[in-house]
């Protein structure tokens, strides 16, 4: 009995939040805040439909997106908010299941266990990716002297070439680098790094077209 009452309270709260969200313009703080509260409350209620399938999370995310982009689609005369959300979720899960069956997937679903996979990918078994190799070569050659020319004031030996070489894998810690050059703190070299070295690196990446390549070779 108590559960039913709290259920009603929750549904009432949610209904009120949806109505309020709809009354504010899209992209407004008030609307976003209320929609966030709806998602929080439903997620926290324990009443959200759950299935142990690999695509559950993807469909749940689509459901949240639907709730947040289309709160006007909620009709309080037909069902409570949680029922509305669960119905949408379950129908989309059914659709996804049917789509996958139709595709006749033979691929084993990606069930990445993060801890286990780390053991499989030890450095020794990996060939060095071409992007990394080319970049390390560019750093080493520094043919126009730009990397060596960007250095700590008064200390040309502490320059971007040296820093990039240290920080690229296998990386040396900032503390160790500071120690190597007898510096009292890491502040100067880290500032040089993100203000000068990274922009030069970024420009190199752009010239090489690495960003496009990355997207093209995406699995």
């Amino acid at each position, binding site marked *: 009995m108590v559960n039913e009452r709290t259920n009603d309270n929750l549904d009432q709260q949610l209904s009120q939040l949806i109505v309020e969200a709809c009354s504010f313009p899209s992209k407004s703080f008030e609307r976003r805040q209320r929609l966030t509260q709806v998602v929080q409350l439903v997620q926290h209620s324990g009443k959200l439909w759950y299935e142990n399938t690999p695509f559950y999370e993807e469909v749940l*995310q689509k459901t*949240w997106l639907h709730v947040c982009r289309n709160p006007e689609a909620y009709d309080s005369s037909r069902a409570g908010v949680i029922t509305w959300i669960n119905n949408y979720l379950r129908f989309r899960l059914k659709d996804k299941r049917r789509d996958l069956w139709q595709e006749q997937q033979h691929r084993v679903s990606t069930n990445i266990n993060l801890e286990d996979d780390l053991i499989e990918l030890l450095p020794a078994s990996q060939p060095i990716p071409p992007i990394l190799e080319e970049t390390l070569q560019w750093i080493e050659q520094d043919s126009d002297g730009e990397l060596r020319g960007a250095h700590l004031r008064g200390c040309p030996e502490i320059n971007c070439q040296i820093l990039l070489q240290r*920080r690229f894998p296998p990386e040396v810690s900032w503390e160790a680098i500071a120690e190597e050059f007898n510096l009292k703190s890491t502040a100067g070299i880290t500032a040089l790094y993100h203000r000068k070295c*990274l922009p030069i690196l970024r420009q190199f990446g752009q010239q090489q077209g690495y960003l496009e390549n990355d997207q093209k070779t995406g699995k």
Partner: protein
Amino acid sequence: MQNLKTSEGLVLPITQEMLQKAEQFAQQQTSTSKHKQVIHNILAVLTVYQYLVMMDVLADLDSSDSWNPLLRYATNVADLKVPGFGHLECRPIDLQTDQCSLPHDLPDNRFGLIGVQLHHLERRARLRGFTTHFEPGQTIAVEELQPFTQLLSYLSRYEVKPSLISLPQVLRGELSVGWQRVEALLGTQQWNLAMSFMGTSETAARRITVAKLLNLGIQLGPESVVLLISPAMEQGGELGIRVQVHPSRGERYLPQELALTLLAQSGKMLKKVLSGTTDNFIQLPYFKCDQDEDFGIEISLADVSITEFFTCQPELTINADFMG
């Protein structure tokens, strides 16, 4: 109203697609520690990205540093570009210590930080908190973070102010972005009608009229109207201004209950006009503004409103201060 502590944050799912992306980037690494770092950082970024998409906040992964393969080699990077605001740091929270560690070489262009708890085994991530106070190399405890919804407040508070349209520039024939010659937006008949109400024949020759198409639609579909502003130099050196709102080309009448408001620089309402059922257009009473007074023109329909800001200040030569 809440029986939920907002400090508990928001739980969002970690999808297969997110895991695949994180794995794809992590496989480019050559050390176990960087591999793990990249997985966690990318999952944190994608969780925040998903939330922003839900909230209809524009976010751009491709412009994020964390999407740049060279920067993933060179730094411990976990950011998300939010156009109009800058880069948002999306830091994984260590589940053992309940803290985020910031790298020493954190760039100084991060406008805020969101802490994300990753429960990858349960395929869940929790947006835990937000802060604008952080330093490179710092370790931040979860308790030091504000509720993550503070990000929403930040976004609404620091939204880039729309630029002022300079009426002296308009008189010189310069058009700002979005503004056009009135003939481009109104049919001849509409324009002739508008002209007859513009002002005295004295100023007619000096009058320049520019127009902007405004979209006031929400759930009912696009509802466009044309805002006209027409300045002219008066005898006393002030600008005499006529503001009108017309239906878009092809439409005969304005939507009902459309409000046209003149706002002072302070935001105070000075004049307001409402459309009725069959208005071909509405206009504000002719007014004059001088150099010291900026003003706003607000057009609203139901709960959608658009405000344009104008200045009558003559040009100053501005020296753009570019930091090298």
